């Protein structure tokens, strides 16, 4: 009898007609709950505790997905051949030599800068500290440029914290959970970075375009002094990002006399590969640093032409 009404040959429902499992009241209540959740979640700061609890619940799933990649990285280290290690060592030595040579020059420049600032009676620049973190190898929503890192509030991560890599700004933390954190990349369409053109000091905003290799600068006047190849650094305005870090390189400038603004696009200098090491920036003043593990002080990168 049951067979007659069901297509699926494996179906062995004990009841032919189940009681109504999709009652109107229950459906409406749950849908309303979803809408209320979305509404409050959109206004950041209301659901932090819920997010913290949920992130702890889903962390094992993220860790499980990340595990094969972590294992592959570990195995690569353990099983690397002697010659490969020697080669890597040689190239790292070379890199270190070049970098320390640049650093010597930089120390002299820093002192010169400090004395000039003294003469101008301007305040001293404060250096921050950084902490290393790793991108988790998990995919987030494909239409948002959001990443997950393996450090959370327990390691001192806070909302709005700047995320860097060896080349420049990656983005900022948009949600710090106890064990992991979410960060929005500068290419996310909801993000804008206050930048200045390193060559001229002209200040503007670099806006995310949802294209991973493209930032747009819509607020540069048609006669603005901007050229292809100019480096954009953070201006430090708005107080979110620390000043003076590389963000992007101008790739295209289109000037149309009919438009008030030039069409300028730029390519981010930071690299965003999976399993990539990133750096969390801790400003030297408030918010205070709750003694995060493995921190070491970092100097501001020298301003100059992009490599």
């Amino acid at each position, binding site marked *: 009898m049951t067979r007659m009404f*069901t297509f699926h040959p*494996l179906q062995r429902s004990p009841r032919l007609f189940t009681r109504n499992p*999709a009652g109107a009241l229950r459906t409406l209540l749950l849908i309303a709950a979803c809408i209320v*959740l979305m509404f409050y*979640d959109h206004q950041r700061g209301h659901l932090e505790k819920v997010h913290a609890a949920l992130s702890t619940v889903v962390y094992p*799933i993220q860790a499980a997905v990340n595990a094969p990649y972590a294992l592959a990285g570990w195995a690569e280290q353990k099983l690397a051949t002697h010659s490969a290690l020697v080669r890597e060592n040689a190239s790292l030595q070379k890199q270190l030599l070049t970098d320390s040579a640049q650093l010597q020059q930089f120390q002299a420049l820093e002192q010169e800068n400090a004395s000039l600032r003294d003469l101008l009676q301007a305040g001293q620049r404060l250096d921050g500290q950084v902490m290393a973190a790793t991108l988790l190898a998990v995919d987030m929503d494909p*239409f*948002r440029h959001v990443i997950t890192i393996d450090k959370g509030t327990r390691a001192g991560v806070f909302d709005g914290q700047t995320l860097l890599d060896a080349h420049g700004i990656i983005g900022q933390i948009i949600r710090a959970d106890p064990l992991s954190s979410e960060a929005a990349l500068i290419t996310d369409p909801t993000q804008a970075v206050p930048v200045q053109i390193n060559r001229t000091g002209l200040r503007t905003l670099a806006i995310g375009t949802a294209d991973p290799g493209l930032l747009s600068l819509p607020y540069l006047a048609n006669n603005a002094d901007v050229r292809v190849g100019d480096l954009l650094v953070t201006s430090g305005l708005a107080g979110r990002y620390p000043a003076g870090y590389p963000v992007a390189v101008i790739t295209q400038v289109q000037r149309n006399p009919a438009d008030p603004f030039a069409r300028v696009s730029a390519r981010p200098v930071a690299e965003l590969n999976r399993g990539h090491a990133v750096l969390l920036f801790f400003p030297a003043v408030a918010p205070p640093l709750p003694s995060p593990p493995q921190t070491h002080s970092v100097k501001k990168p020298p301003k100059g032409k992009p490599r």
Partner: protein
Amino acid sequence: MNFVLRRRANWVIVVTYLVALLLSIWPLPDWAEAFRPAWLLLATIYWCLFLPHRVGLLVTFGVGILLDALTGSLLGEHALALLLIAWVTLKLHLQIRVFPWWQQMLVVFLLSLLYSFVLYWVDGMLGYTQGALLRWMPVLITSLLWPWSMQLLGMLQQRFQVN
């Protein structure tokens, strides 16, 4: 005895949902990311179709919130889309069950169209309007995967006596 067995087989449902969640965040190459099938949608449709007295709206709401937490979307976004699908499936489960496989595929196509539409709608209100064409790729792939996932889940259901 029957009662004990029935309760014990709960883990099969939990495992299928867990696998669907794992697959939803499994890292894919960048070009393939937009083609990722909506795994959780397939699991939800299957269980609501063939086990409506045990997997209903509350379970769907729960896994939807977990998916939101995993993918970094707005809390409640995927839950809302899945809830609507689950509601339609539960309402029509007796009809959809007796459909031949290609008609079921058509139903899954329409349901995942609704699913993608709700996600696009919420994202659009937040300003994520890019990739309008790519958003419909998972609809096609999810519905093409339906017959296989139904066979697989059916085998699991029979093997472990989940009913």
